[in-house]
């Protein structure tokens, strides 16, 4: 855990991290005293970094993300997103993208993207203009009037990403966003996400099961243990950017993936 503490210093010391989590623990209430879900989580995510969290099912990755988003409160510890705590969701600071695209089936793609703005009463013309811009950012020009059931799985997730980006939050939390997609679409979407990330300069925290996806996308990978979840390893991905598909064949890529795999394999429940 020592290297975690050093991380901020390495990256220019005084600069405030985008996310700072300290001593975070969570216990789910239950009849027999409850279940410990997270234990003493500490992490610091630098501004503009792409951080991936991997870990076995049920390790509390999603819980941690929900807490960062202000959708759930931890039993203990502190979370600072851009220097302020998250007692409630704050969509202008933190955008969340969920595992299922979770689009509203009764709204068109554009209306889905506009949804966060319409909650805040942004005028219709402005909403439409911003949503259209988002739609082309995610490569879906011309699909704005389609309903979700008329879109493929990858397209739905693109719409969901556009919805997450429309308020231009500096922080983007992504909970296994590509888990439901086939392998090919998943790789394409990962690549697309990197392209969008590099043009928007956001800080991203991305949760996944896939080691390949983790190494391909990340600046840093955090490995979590099985329940109760704690962070057991922190890996700097030193692959150059922009990432290219052929980097997956390099020995560095293999070594990084192997290191994560070794960490996960050591865990009691395996992955």
């Amino acid at each position: 855990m020592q290297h975690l503490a050093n991380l901020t210093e390495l990256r220019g010391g005084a600069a405030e991290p985008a996310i700072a989590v300290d001593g975070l623990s969570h216990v789910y209430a239950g009849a027999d005293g409850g279940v410990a879900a997270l234990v003493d989580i500490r992490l610091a995510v630098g501004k503009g970094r792409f951080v991936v969290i991997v870990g076995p099912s049920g390790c509390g990755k999603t819980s941690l993300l929900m807490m960062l988003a202000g959708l759930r409160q931890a039993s203990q510890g502190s979370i600072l997103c851009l220097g302020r705590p998250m007692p409630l969701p704050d969509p202008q600071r933190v955008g969340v993208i969920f595992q299922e695209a979770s689009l509203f089936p009764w709204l068109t793609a554009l209306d889905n993207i506009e949804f966060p703005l319409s909650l805040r009463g942004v005028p219709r013309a402005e909403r439409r203009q911003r949503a259209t811009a988002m739609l082309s950012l995610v490569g879906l020009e011309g699909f704005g009037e389609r309903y979700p059931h008329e879109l493929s799985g990858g397209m739905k997730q693109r719409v969901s990403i556009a919805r997450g980006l429309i308020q231009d939050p500096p922080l983007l939390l992504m909970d296994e966003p590509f888990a439901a997609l086939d392998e090919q679409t998943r790789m394409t979407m990962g690549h697309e996400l990197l392209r969008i990330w590099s043009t928007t300069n956001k800080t991203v925290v991305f949760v996944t099961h896939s080691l390949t996806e983790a190494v391909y996308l990340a600046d840093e990978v955090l490995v979590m243990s099985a329940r109760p979840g704690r962070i057991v390893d922190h890996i700097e991905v030193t692959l150059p950017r922009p990432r290219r598909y052929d980097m997956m064949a390099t020995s560095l890529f293999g070594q990084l993936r192997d290191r994560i795999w070794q960490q996960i394999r050591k865990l009691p429940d395996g992955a």
Partner: protein
Amino acid sequence: MTRTQIIATRLALLALVLAAWELLPRLGVVNPLLLPPLSQVLGVLGDLIGRASVQEAVAVTALEVIVAFLIAVPLGAAAGIVIAENEYLSDIFKPMLFYVFSIPKSIFLPMFILLFGIGFQQKVAYAAFTTGFVVLMSATAAVESVRADHVLVARSYGATPMQILWRVYVPSMLPFLLETLRISMIFNFTGVMIAEMYASRTGIGHLIANWGENFQMPQLFAGVIVLSAVAIIFNEAVRALEVRCSTWRT
């Protein structure tokens, strides 16, 4: 089959049934006292429609149907939503409701007569009672159809509880509720009919029951035609609303 062919086949089938209705009694294959020929029924129908007493009966029945529907739907829906959304109420009432739902409601008819007499109020109360149950059960299911991830998405974008109700719950439940409207209209109409046929002084149901008891078959069949027409009009009115509201369905 093309659309034209389908419509042509339907019309041919209808013509066949009507022709059989006309010819079988006339040829003596079916006893004309039990099934009068169509032409005779239509003659009686024309005569009946012109009569003030029949017009009044139709108006009474229609009013009973509408009033019972307007009472049963909002009450049943509100009760269903409240029960489904509240964990305690759910635990307490749901099993009981399922048991009561399985009991044929018509056995309660004598109690409604004792409480409300045999007039307008009793018809409305009984029909609203039977329909309210259907609406309540469907509304409960409709609430359960609201997806947790949709609510979570709305919350993550800072939606207030009222926004979650109007922007997530209502549109999620709408297809269910519209379907419920149509089914509950069928139950509602049946409720009014049963109440009218069991004990009444007016209404189409009452007239039909009377004609049956007096063996006036042409009148009885004419009454069935009138009643069917009214029932289909009500059902189609609800369905037109349903189609309009649910283009985004699935």
